[in-house]
């Protein structure tokens, strides 16, 4: 496993390099410039701005400049937020997204895993229908509807929770529910399906045949194997949820990374888009590595050859 992990780590740099190059090309090929704004400017001023940001140079030269800076972990200054560096923006946005996303993930897992198991062991019984209905209700109301709805109910018509912004724990309740319900549906459904399958698998029959107690069979054999699909989903899923959801951040006025990323993309803020993409890429790769290692650990059937 150690050899495998090391091998994977060696692959990180080339992966990031390809990601960075592809993204650089994508953002620069896309029409629209970071300099375009509500108020058009005379050609001379535009030329001054292009010179200031080196946008008048050939693309390959800009690329070289960017790579050189990135190699020193300097993502440069944001085009949109001129007074702040990309590093600072990521450093302020990420912890917020991490907090909201982390709690949402916790919400989804803590509720979803038991619900899924319950539904599986009571397959086609009322408990199953109840659990599945609840989880599906979560996904069938999109979070851009659920969010404003909760705000109306809990902040406007009743004075129970703040309508948005950052602050104490009360500020996190609605965003976490809005973001978490969707993941709850995924976790519950995947958990149920996987548990049903694992319960029928030959190695569980073997374990039972060996006379192990039902609880022991469940905890030691069923649960780890049944977690596999949830974990596969969580690799990229957790990376996405922890780096922010633009919809929820917009609705609740939370200064997270998801909002930065979408505004950056809309503004063609090249440096910020590249910086966040790279950051996101690192997190994705890290999570997927963790997931792959977990596979082998959780499920004895998995080997890397």
């Amino acid at each position, binding site marked *: 496993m150690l050899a495998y992990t090391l091998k994977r780590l060696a692959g990180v740099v080339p992966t990031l390099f390809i990601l960075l190059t592809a993204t650089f090309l994508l953002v620069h090929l896309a029409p629209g410039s970071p300099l375009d704004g509500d108020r058009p400017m005379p050609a001379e*001023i535009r030329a001054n701005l292009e010179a200031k940001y080196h946008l008048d140079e050939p693309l390959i030269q800009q690329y070289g400049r960017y790579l050189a800076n990135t190699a020193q972990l300097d993502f440069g200054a944001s085009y949109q*937020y001129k*007074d702040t560096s990309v590093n600072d923006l990521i450093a302020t*946005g990420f912890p917020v997204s991490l907090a909201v996303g982390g709690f949402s993930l916790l919400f989804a897992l803590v509720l979803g895993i038991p619900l899924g198991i319950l539904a599986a062991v009571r397959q086609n019984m009322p408990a199953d229908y109840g659990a599945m209905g609840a989880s599906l209700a979560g996904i069938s109301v999109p979070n851009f509807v659920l969010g404003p709805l909760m705000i109306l109910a809990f902040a406007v018509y009743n004075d129970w929770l703040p309508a948005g912004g950052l602050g104490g724990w009360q500020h996190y309740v609605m965003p976490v529910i809005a973001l978490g319900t969707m993941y709850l549906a995924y976790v519950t459904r995947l958990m149920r399906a996987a548990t049903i399958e694992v319960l029928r698998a030959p190695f569980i029959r073997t374990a039972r045949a060996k006379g192990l107690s039902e609880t022991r069979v469940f905890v030691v054999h069923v649960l780890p194997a049944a977690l596999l699909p949830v974990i596969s989903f969580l690799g990229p899923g957790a990376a996405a949820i922890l780096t922010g959801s633009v919809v929820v951040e917009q609705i609740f006025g939370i200064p997270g990374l998801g909002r930065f990323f979408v505004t950056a993309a809309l503004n063609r803020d090249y440096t910020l888009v590249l910086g966040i993409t790279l950051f996101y890429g690192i997190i994705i790769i890290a999570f997927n590595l963790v997931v792959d290692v977990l596979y082998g650990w959780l499920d004895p059937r998995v080997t890397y050859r």
Partner: protein
Amino acid sequence: MARTGLSIAAGLTLVAVLTGCGGDESGFANRLAPAVAADGTKTLRYGNQTEPGTLDPHQASGVPAANVLRDLYEGLVITGADDKIIPGVAESWTISDDRLTYTFKLRSDARWSNGKPVTAQDFVYSLRRAVAPTTASSYADIHAPIKNATAIINNDKPPETLGVAAPDAHTLVIRLKEPTPFFLQTLTHPSSDPVYRPAVEQWGDSFTQPGHAVTNGAYTMDAWRVNERIRVKRNPYYWDNANTAIDRVEFYPIEDGNSELSRYQAGGLDWAATVPPAATARIKRHIPDQYHAVPTIGIAYLGLNMRHAPFADNRKLRLALSMALDRDVITDKILRGGQPTLYSAVPDTVRGYTPVEYDWQDWPDDKRKARARRLYHEAGYSAEHPLQAEYLYPSGGVGKTLGLVAVAMWREVLGADITPINQEWKVFLQTAREGYDTQIFWGGWIGDYDDPNTFFSIFNSKAALNYTGYDSPAYDTAQERSSHTPTGAKRTALMHKAEATLLHDAPIIPVWVYTYHQLVKPYVTSYQPSALGNYYSKNFDIRPGQDADGGAGGH
């Protein structure tokens, strides 16, 4: 289908919530909890739409940045009641007889937030910085009236040649290239604000950050977290600090109008800068005193690309499209925000100018539509041979609503077949700027300064914003001459000629006058509507207990 029952139950809950089964039937029972701390510190919480890209006055753009900069920096002149120009850092000024030299007398008690005096040299430095190519300010051209400004922008002369001088610490002399009747108005723009040289030189791009920033307005930077809020605090050295009541101002960037309204209703904001059209009726019913619709110096129009078919050389077709629109329906039934209809290029909100307007604005509907149809036929189109064109608009804005309505009206009145096409914002800007593919496109313009010229200049054939490709020597001449003619009958005549020419040629279809909407809590006192949207926090106060019943009662 036991589980569908659940979604129906969820739906019923939604209905219950919306019809208000909670503690507050309308959602508008005033939560009158102003942010006044135990020690009496007063904080104004302000919904500010989007996050300002920068708080460098010379590089900033957009209304949200201007809102913050008005509190942070004070220019030579500012605006007062009714948007009149009043003294700022300059306590008085004289204009030479040839109208080329402006001499400003700076107040001796003007101070930076570190206690240092604000001097004429600060303005010399700042104005040079504003036009310097290395600053690359997108608003540099607003200073074009100043001598040598254009040459400096074009890299032909060094910034030191700008026509500004400081004979002594409290006298500033600005020399103009040509007489410019609206020069003082341009000085109220943030790009004319002074910046503190040592801070700029020490910190570079981050001189605006809390801890680095040194400002000369009533407030100075306290905290800034991008996308969360900007907080400014009282500048104790501000010359009029004694009369400033509000201690802190918080600017919250909330892009979504509904989110902002919720925050306002829930008591998290004292001031909301937008009102979602759908909510207007309810707001007017429940909290009419807090709702303000203030038409501003901005126009919403549809541009017609004059470079290509079908609109090149077909004035009748352009006019037919313009006349086919029922602007009253658009403003009263669709926008619902008190927007005045627009039949001219300059809105009548601009001070001291009465626009020329299309004479058919008062015609009965039938007559107007009949004329539109006649022009359409004369232009060579008919039911058998309808006009086929595309209307281009940016995603996610009012351009979509307008487009849908306009397209429907063109179909109904003329039988024209117009396809709405949306593009993502930056793609739209590029397409419109290049002008190869556009036919009919969404246009909107908020004036830079309070003078008709800020509207006339954008349709000059050489202007960057002239996305229509309109090129009329007669118009250009009238516009250029009007921009250098002293205020008076002669200038008015020139402007009327320019506007009449523009309306006759119809490169644009004017639709409505941009209107600012504000919700202001009753405990915020001294609110005065400003067509320019120039609100200075130093003019307000928070009086807890004011209108505590949430009912009627003015300010």
